[in-house]
């Protein structure tokens, strides 16, 4: 479903962000993307989201190729990709339900469909009682739940999570991680970028790709195939 083939990315002012990264994420798979800050995790997320183009190599996502994708196709592709950030990226002047609804409004969904989906997702992320609260009235963990609900609103094939627990305390971190795991069990692939090794170690059943200086230095799936 997502395939990176020898992807290179250079910074505009020189220096390499990625040095020939290749891996494939299959439908319904859960994968940790680990590495220290600057290893290239966020760059990979942005490239998969088509927010940027690789300097060399190719990226294929849900039938689209980075080399040939058109601007309108990028918008359509993004409706198949949920994206969750460390800093939530919620609209501060809109309620939790309005933030989730916003992602459906841009697709031209009918109001009845929006109401129904938003209500279901708020219940799924455990915020049914806080639907009218503004982001500033919610805790960090609750804000991230709203962001996750927004990412799920278009029934994406894959959820990209870029350090989604980076701003959360331990309790909220595990709550959010459990939410991602449940989403994955329901069939959505998850690419979970984190430098929280504790989270990775305590979930040994999931695939792990480790990056260092823009290169893949460990891929548990490749190790397993090699063994």
């Amino acid at each position, binding site marked *: 479903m997502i395939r990176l083939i020898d992807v290179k990315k250079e910074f505009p002012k020189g220096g390499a962000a990625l040095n020939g990264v290749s891996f494939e994420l299959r439908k319904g798979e859960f994968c940790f993307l680990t590495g220290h800050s600057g290893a290239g995790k966020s760059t990979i997320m942005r490239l998969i*989201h088509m*927010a940027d183009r690789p300097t060399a190599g190719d990226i294929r996502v849900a039938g689209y190729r980075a080399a040939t994708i058109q*601007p*309108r196709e990028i*918008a*359509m*592709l*993004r*409706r198949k990709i949920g*994206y969750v950030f460390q800093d939530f*990226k919620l*609209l501060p002047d809109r309620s939790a339900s309005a933030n989730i609804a*916003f*992602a459906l*409004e*841009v*697709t031209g969904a009918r109001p009845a469909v929006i109401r129904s989906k938003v209500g279901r997702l708020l219940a799924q992320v455990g915020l049914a009682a806080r639907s009218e609260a503004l982001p500033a009235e919610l805790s960090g963990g609750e804000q991230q739940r709203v962001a996750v609900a*927004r990412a799920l*609103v*278009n029934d994406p094939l894959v959820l990209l999570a870029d350090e989604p627990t980076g701003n959360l305390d331990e309790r909220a971190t595990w709550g959010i991680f459990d939410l991602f795991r449940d989403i994955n069990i329901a069939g959505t692939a998850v690419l979970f970028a984190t430098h929280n090794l504790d989270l990775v170690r305590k979930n040994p059943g999931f695939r792990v790709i480790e990056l260092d200086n823009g290169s893949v230095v460990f891929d548990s799936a490749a190790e397993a195939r090699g063994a």
Partner: protein
Amino acid sequence: MPHALTEALRAFRRAPLLTGLSAGMIALSLFLVGLFGLAAYNIRRVLERVEARVEVVAFLRDDAVPEMVTQAREQIEAYDEVREVRYVSREAALLKARRELPEFEELFGDIESNPLPASIEVMLKPNQTGPTIVERVAARIRQYPFVEDVRYGSEWLDKVYVLRRVAGTAMLVLGASFAIVASLIIATAIRMAIYARRDEIAIMRLVGATEGFIRRPFVLEGLFTGIGGGVVAVALTYAVFAMISRSIFQLEWLPQSWMAAGIAAGAVVGIVASAIAVRRHLREV
């Protein structure tokens, strides 16, 4: 479209000062164009009235044979440009002079013989009063051997037409200049609106909004600003028209098509300026 409309209207509530300033500047620009338009329109109306009175007068030699004059009169009446031809005899000319110039009554009373020549007055059709046409008709009439001289006020007629051309050109130049100024103001307002909403735009892109969906509210905002400015400009122009008509001299108010064109100009300036600004500045956020 409902989303674009809601967002465009929300922009006015969100930044009333900025959008009000934009609409105000467009109104001011179009108001100045409107004032000039009012002047140009009234000059045009005066010219039309003057043009309606344009006539060619052929003064006849004293030895002109009446039958030849009658024949020539019939021929001139058949010209495409001519509405009416009147023969004015020497006696009729003297009577007319006495009637129209009473201050010279004493002079006319003293003279023993009539010094005024007979003439043929040629009135032209309403749309046949341009300088070239008048010149052409005069040249044809001058061909008759019994015609001593032909007068049609060529000098002042040419000047009136030059004035009309200058007025029209000045209106176009002024209109274009202020359209550019108004465009720059709208573009600046749209740019500021884009920067104020850059987080929202980033989230729109994140969740799969097309560029058209993101652009539409800004373009509509420009359109509404332009229409609002156009309506205010028409109202201000009317206020000036009413004031001048009441206290200085009576003017004619602009036709509805001119007012509609003014508002449409505001709308076009608004939509074009915002579309260009959106296309340019959305890339930066």
